């Protein structure tokens, strides 16, 4: 898929020749607050999440699109990176959905990123954990398995952002700050465990949405 995208990009470059074109590199980074998650002093033992329908567009034109599910493991994956071509100076629109599409179980149990062996499948009830995070903070062990889709309350969340890329900018970082999950709001203290779809999963899904940001380097 990625290879195909590169070929596509190459063809695009070869066929269109205007001066506003430039390549932008997008890289995913996981952090705990300001420190990289791989650092030894972060309290996270497990951190992975699914997305699908990742797209970057400009003026309604698609520059990058991954419809299929992706699983990102903050602690074991090699850092995810990709490149896309922009042809205009206008803002770019970034969108993706945290969680999995409705069709995910249409054909039975999935393989690859959808294999239950990834530890992202509930077995007592059908469905995937969309975001899994286990951490020891302040001598307390937290365990979050966040997910749920119909007939359970839907814990998928769609992220959207607009970015204005200044001239010369070549790198964007997609930052996932896992500490955000453990940031209590006034009325909602931090739960210790969440292992099922429901109101708690909905709350944590909202918090995890807040964990994402895009930074221009």
């Amino acid at each position, binding site marked *: 898929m990625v290879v195909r995208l590169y070929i596509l990009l190459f063809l695009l470059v070869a066929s269109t020749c205007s001066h506003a074109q430039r390549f932008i590199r997008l890289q995913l980074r996981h952090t705990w607050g300001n420190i990289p998650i791989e650092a030894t002093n972060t309290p996270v033992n497990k951190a992975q999440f699914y997305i699908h329908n990742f797209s970057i567009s400009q003026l309604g034109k698609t520059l990058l699109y991954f419809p299929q599910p992706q699983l990102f493991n903050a602690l074991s994956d090699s850092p995810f990176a990709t490149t896309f071509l922009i042809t205009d100076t206008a803002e770019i629109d970034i969108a993706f959905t945290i969680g999995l599409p409705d069709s995910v*179980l249409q*054909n*039975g*149990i999935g393989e690859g990123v959808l*294999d*239950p062996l990834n530890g992202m499948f509930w*077995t*007592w009830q*059908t469905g995937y954990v969309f975001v899994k995070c286990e951490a020891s903070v302040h001598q307390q062990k937290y365990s979050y398995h966040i997910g749920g889709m119909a*007939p359970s309350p839907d814990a998928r969340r769609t992220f959207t952002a607009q970015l204005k890329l200044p001239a010369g900018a070549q790198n964007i970082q997609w930052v996932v700050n896992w500490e955000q999950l453990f940031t209590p709001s006034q009325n909602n203290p931090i739960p210790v465990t969440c292992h099922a779809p429901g109101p708690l999963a909905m709350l944590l899904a909202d918090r995890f949405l807040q964990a994402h940001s895009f930074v221009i380097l």
Partner: protein
Amino acid sequence: MWKLVFLGICAVLAVCVLALHSWVWAWAKSPNGGVPAYPATWPKPLYNFQANPPTSAGIALGKKLFYDGLLSADGYTSCASCHQQFAAFSTYDHPLSHGVNNQFSLRNAPGLFNLAWHTNYHLDGGITHLDAQPLAPITATNEMGETLENVIQKLQNHPVYPALFQKAFGTSKVSTRLFTKAISQFLVTLVSANSKYDRVMAGTDTFNLPQRLGYELFMAKGCAGCHTPPLFTNFAFENIGLPIDSTLNDYGRMRVTQNPQDSLRFKVPSLRNVQLTMPYTHDGRFSSIDQVLQHYNSGVVAHASTSPQLRKGISLTKFQMGQIKAFLYTLTDTAFVKNKVFADAVVEKPGMQHHP
């Protein structure tokens, strides 16, 4: 003389054609084939046969897995230990089923048949695909207590299984996807459609008087609104006014939807083979059909989510209960529970635990 013989043959043929006509088994032909036979008067099954077309090798593998204790932590607790064929694949005479380490399941094990017509499984509908069903008992600590990693490793290292996967799926590499597909291929063959009721509807048999009166009552008293023929369930979730069991605290459908309106709602069970699936209801609290009917008559405890048609109960005289019961017994499919095709090849393993 010849004329007579000819007429005789014609008569026999005519009867055969009539019988066939009224009892046509649609051998539904999908491009991939393999959809099990079912009566032509039934709705179409909902299982995605395109994604998992049953083959004889796949069904045989699924059946072997269903009867194999290897899928459990103790090596004995197979699917079949809780789903017994003679009880239409329910756990006979146990309110709750036994899992590994002498633990009990949360719910009464339902019979397994006509599963290709369901869109969700478990009494709360929490399982939304038949292929995902085996993962629940396998990994439940109070049922088979095993991990998926171990199951796959045990199957992969087994002297026989890799070859069976090769035969069924063209690869000897065992995966969650494939072993669950094999189990589904076996489960969808469990079609129960040959009870006396079916024969009566097909015109090849007749109800006796109590059975007929029971059938009429079943239709007239609104039972069929939920236990809808021909599958004898409408697959809805309903609260029939059973008070909560305060040790199990099972709120049914609400566990899945988190919606208070679904509190104490459970999936309407099929009443096919109901004579064999005792005890009854989600926690097996009733040991006889009489007790269930008594509940409908006078035991309903209305609650906000109780089905409107049951709030005041369904009044039934002793006579009527007897007639309904006589009708319900016509839903027993003896050919199904005795069908050797569904039975384990090995009758009993040495050292097999017997439950009291």
